[in-house]
């Protein structure tokens, strides 16, 4: 069995699971959009004077995207645990399919779900007149970035699920992103932060992912921002996949 074919079949299976459990997907999109609306509603009118940001709605779209990706990967971690508890994960391990590909199937499905949810958030943003400075090609780059961020971040939850087999731990793993979001430039530019928070925001990879996404939406093409964002996602991916494969090795030894 070819690894890519295994990943494809198991991605389809995970997506089918998502389609048959629509309530979960509604929750994944509702919560980020709720915070998006509340944040824009409460700070949006003063953002230009306070932070020098004219298009605060566009400024907030990437935050909603990352929050949604986080929710998705938390539910995927729970899906892995359900498979483990039902014995279906063992059933998959008993096939000749490469074991890493079995885990990657669900992770890749999270990437696809992140793309779909990003598309929904972009449409909502356009309805609220965020605009999209880099046009259609910029949307494609944003969606591609969401796919890679979704898979990279999902790896953390897969690692927690494989290592602990605990639904509570998997749910908690999904919350990892929230402190990183609050310690980034999610709600205001770095320049208005206290010194200590500026340092944390500067070393926080989420800052660079947000800035890359914002550049596509409200600034236009900026190669340096895009490269930094890509590097941050790759760093996330290397860390999360390393943890995932270590956890898989532990579970199957």
């Amino acid at each position, binding site marked *: 069995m070819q690894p890519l074919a295994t990943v494809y079949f198991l991605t389809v*299976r995970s997506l089918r699971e998502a389609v048959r459990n629509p309530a979960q997907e509604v929750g994944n999109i509702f919560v980020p959009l709720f915070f998006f609306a509340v944040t824009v509603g409460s700070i949006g009118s003063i953002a230009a004077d306070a932070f020098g940001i004219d298009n605060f709605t566009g400024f907030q779209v990437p935050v909603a995207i990352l929050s949604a990706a986080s929710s998705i990967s938390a539910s995927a971690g729970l899906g892995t645990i359900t498979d483990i508890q039902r014995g279906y994960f063992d059933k998959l391990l008993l096939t000749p399919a490469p074991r890493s590909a079995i885990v990657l199937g669900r992770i890749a499905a999270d990437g696809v779900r992140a793309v779909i949810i990003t598309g929904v958030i972009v449409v909502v943003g356009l309805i609220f007149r965020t605009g999209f400075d880099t046009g259609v090609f910029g949307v494609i780059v944003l969606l591609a970035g969401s796919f890679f961020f979704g898979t990279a971040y999902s790896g953390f939850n897969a690692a927690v699920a494989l290592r602990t087999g605990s639904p509570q731990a998997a749910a908690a793993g999904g919350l990892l992103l929230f402190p990183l979001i609050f310690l980034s430039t999610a709600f205001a530019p770095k320049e208005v932060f206290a010194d200590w928070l500026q340092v944390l925001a500067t070393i926080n990879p989420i800052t660079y992912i947000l800035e890359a996404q914002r550049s596509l939406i409200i600034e236009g093409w900026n190669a340096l921002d895009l490269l930094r964002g890509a590097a941050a996602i790759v760093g996330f991916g290397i860390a999360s996949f390393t943890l995932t494969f270590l956890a898989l090795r532990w579970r199957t030894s």
Partner: protein
Amino acid sequence: MRLAKTRHNISKFAERTQCPTLDSVSAIWARGLVKHFDEVRAVDGIDLDIAPGTIFGFLGQNGSGKTTTIRMLTTLLRPTAGSARVDGLDILDDARAVRRRIGVALQEAGLDDIQTGRELLTLQARLFGMGGNARRQRVDELLAVVDLEDAADRAIGTYSGGMKRRLDLAAALVHRPGIIFLDEPTTGLDPVSREAIWRYVNRLSVEDGITVFLTTQYLEEADRLAHDLAIIDEGRIIARGSPAEMKASIGTDVVTVEVPVADGLGRAAEVAAGVAGVERVQIADGAAVVYVPDGARAVARIVLALDDAGIEVGDVGISRPSLDDVFLEATGHHLRVEEPAAAEGGAA
């Protein structure tokens, strides 16, 4: 008849594995298989030689090491020590090739409730590299074999326990394995569903020549299905042979004498042991179990001796040796069967 069938299966197996020496062929072979979980020795040095095409029963109560053994042989767990070969392949060095040749239905039917039965079998077939028409035909064929055609397009979450077990069995067979591992396939099922599973398992061996490694905690299941049997207790194999050989090894009838007064049991055993012809006596579950040739004649002597000794006697039974007697003799206690909270089933 059974010997001829076994020889035929060995020939087919040797042909497939291109093995020149028939006598050395085992479908499953293990030496000194050990598995520790921290301080617990779950499996403590198991040797196996299972002939191709046979049904091998692995009998033991919960926690005896059956499932751990099966998980090692199917490459889900790495042994702490020892070695094993399945279909001629080393379980550590050739793990993926082993998985290609075996089918496995574990104790909990490992299914995905959200998929339909057909989708699950189709995915399973795809993961074994089956494509196109061959895959579709095999899935349809298996759904018919396990009587799930009508439910094939329903979510598995709506299936009864018996239907799930049958689907799990079909999933284990989808790639036509030569060896199949079934871990307590009927635990928790009602008698009708249990009967259906037994019928399928028997068919696998008789019609398809598949080697079946079956763990069970049910004596009747082991007695009825297994050509060859091993009893495992506390991680060690303590008896081995065909069910008939094992029962014959007892060599006597079994007279069970219940003693209503608990503190009289030890004395009853002493008195019974002194009766002419009695070979040995064991105490188990509030009764004295007396092994004696020609039990029908001996029972009167035993009851009279107990009465003379002033010991009150309750129910008395005579039986030919059963696998439970074999288990009792080997372990000193009866096989304790632990059922799930409620037996599931529904053959429909």
